[in-house]
């Protein structure tokens, strides 16, 4: 069931929407003076459809509005009833027959034709043969006739935008410790998550703004890997973030806002491989980032360059299948020295004969090279090197290179 609320003498739309929102969160703003709401489920609160309509009229009167309310099975019929009948109307079958066809809002051509035919009411228009109407008035005629019969059916088109999901609090006394701040954050996040839940939404990003005493606001943004609405998880993530990036002055006000999106729907299965639970994983990543530093925990990604050992660490997102590893080498894995160890190399005939570096000393038993590589010569950060694979007398295999720009030797890593 739908209820249309029409202000015949015009009204402030915001006021009208305000009245309607007391009865339903889903409001269609049909015109500047008409709104439609769904009244399904309100019978337990207000009683019969007529009593619901009466309650709406009373609420509007309290707000200083004179409105007509009609209740019908579909939104269009309710709108026509509210515009055509004064006061409260429950649109029973056939009740619409007396309404003037002008309420259907026909185009000028159709209105002229209907006037020529002597059709003035919904009932007269509804009684016309459907084929004849389609032949003479086309698609518009068929649509209008269906409305005139009260048979129109469409879903409500709510036009009210979702309210901004934000909470804020001014503090009487500046806060200097994170623990009481976490207590306040918990309260704000609980409210925020309750509002998200009431709308069936989840947060994809959280923004925290702390107003500071005598300093610029401290702003932090928490981008979540997938939409969530768990206040406890948000609180832990924000607390860990604030421990890593503490505000530089006492906090005088707190504001949190969330970017609301539809929640993630995942189909679970019995045979899906083992994977960390996303919320736990996010918390674990935040804790590890706090331990080893941001940027030191993530998924390695190789760079599209010929520069040796170029990679970056990106946010770990489970399994995105960026690039399936494929067995393409039978060389042993490298263990890199970061940074590369500066080495003293005796190379009497141009080939390394003895190597000494921090923690590595030995005579070269076997060697292969040099393998010359260079690149990025067009930028400041150019590289050019001669690489050698050497087996030292200490029993290990190393990757050794000589920088061709300064002639220095470096041990880059050990094959293992």
């Amino acid at each position, binding site marked *: 069931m739908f209820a249309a609320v029409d202000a015949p003498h015009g009204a402030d739309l915001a006021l009208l929407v305000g009245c309607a929102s007391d009865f339903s969160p889903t409001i269609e703003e049909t015109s500047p003076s008409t709104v439609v709401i769904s009244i399904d489920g309100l019978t337990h609160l207000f009683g019969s459809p007529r009593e619901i309509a009466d309650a709406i009229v009373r609420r509007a009167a309290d707000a200083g509005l004179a409105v007509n309310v009609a209740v019908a099975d579909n939104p269009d019929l309710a709108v026509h009833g509210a515009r055509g009948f004064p006061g409260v109307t429950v649109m029973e079958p056939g009740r619409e027959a007396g309404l003037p066809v002008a309420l259907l809002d026909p185009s000028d051509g159709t209105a002229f034709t209907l006037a020529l035919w002597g059709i003035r009411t919904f009932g007269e228009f509804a009684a016309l043969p459907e084929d004849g109407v389609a032949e003479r008035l086309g698609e518009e005629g068929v649509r209008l006739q269906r409305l005139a019969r009260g048979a129109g059916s469409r879903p409500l088109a709510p036009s009210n935008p979702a309210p901004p999901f934000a909470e804020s609090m001014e503090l009487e006394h500046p806060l200097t410790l994170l623990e009481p701040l976490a207590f306040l954050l918990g309260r704000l996040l609980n409210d925020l998550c309750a509002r998200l839940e009431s709308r069936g939404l989840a947060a994809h990003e959280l923004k925290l703004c702390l107003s500071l005493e005598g300093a610029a606001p401290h702003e932090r943004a928490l981008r979540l890997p997938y939409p969530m609405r768990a206040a406890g998880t948000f609180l832990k993530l924000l607390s860990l973030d604030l421990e890593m990036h503490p505000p530089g002055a006492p906090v005088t006000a707190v504001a949190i806002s969330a970017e609301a999106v539809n929640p993630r729907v995942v189909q679970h299965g019995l045979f899906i491989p*083992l994977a*960390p639970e996303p919320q736990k994983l996010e918390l*674990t990543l935040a804790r590890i980032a706090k331990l080893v530093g941001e940027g030191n925990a993530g998924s*390695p*990604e190789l760079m599209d360059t010929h520069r040796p050992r170029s*990679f970056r660490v990106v946010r770990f*997102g489970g399994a995105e299948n960026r690039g399936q590893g494929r067995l393409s080498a039978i*060389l042993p*894995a490298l263990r890199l020295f970061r940074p590369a160890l500066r080495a003293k190399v005796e190379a009497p005939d141009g080939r390394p004969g003895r190597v000494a570096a921090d923690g590595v000393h030995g005579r070269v038993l076997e060697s292969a090279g040099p393998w010359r590589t260079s690149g990025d010569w067009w930028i400041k950060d150019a590289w050019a090197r001669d690489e050698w694979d050497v087996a030292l007398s200490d029993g290990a295999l190393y990757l050794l290179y000589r920088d061709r720009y300064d002639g220095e030797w470096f041990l880059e890593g050990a094959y293992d």
Partner: protein
Amino acid sequence: MKSSALLRADLESALGGRFSAELNWRARPARECVSTGIASLDALTGGLPRGAITEIHGPASSGRTSLMSAMLAAAAAREEICALADAGDTFDPASAQALGVDLSRLLWVRCGGNPEHALKAADMLVQAGGFGLVALDLGDVSPSVARRIPLATWYRLRRAIEDTGTVMLLVEREQTVKSCASLVLEMRRESVVWRGVAGCSRMLRSARFRAASEGTSVPIGLAG
């Protein structure tokens, strides 16, 4: 010497009033094992036990990292998520990918030479659950430092992982975990394969390693 049944009966009669349950051993189901990614090693060990610690130890260039990469690649092939707590920050993503590791399924924690951070990170990863394989790389930590890690730490890790489906892998120079490891693999290098003429076009072709467990060893081939 008393049999265990008699000993238990004695203990139960002495302490029966203080315990509500009988002193029964907790039946431990047989552990599920998964492939190491290397057929000869699977044949030797039966695979990597889930919910247990596997220790790989050996000197530098003994093939520990290559074996770890093969295990990470095998886990990725099973579509599992893996994690590596890298104490010495020595992991090379390029060579790992060349050995078949799917980097997008790998969470790499770079601990910048701090073994304590690596241990804590590994503990957090195990506690988070859901990882198919968690590797703790202490391969460049000196044995004297590794020996100073309290045995209680390993017991705690073993207990944390016990009821999970995670394979815990530990890479180090010398065996330090003692009885906490369910599988111990000792690595050594057998030979290095060079190709070409020395002094002219020579290149490192490959290396052959050997893994030993409980006195039996098998060759480890990288050539897939």
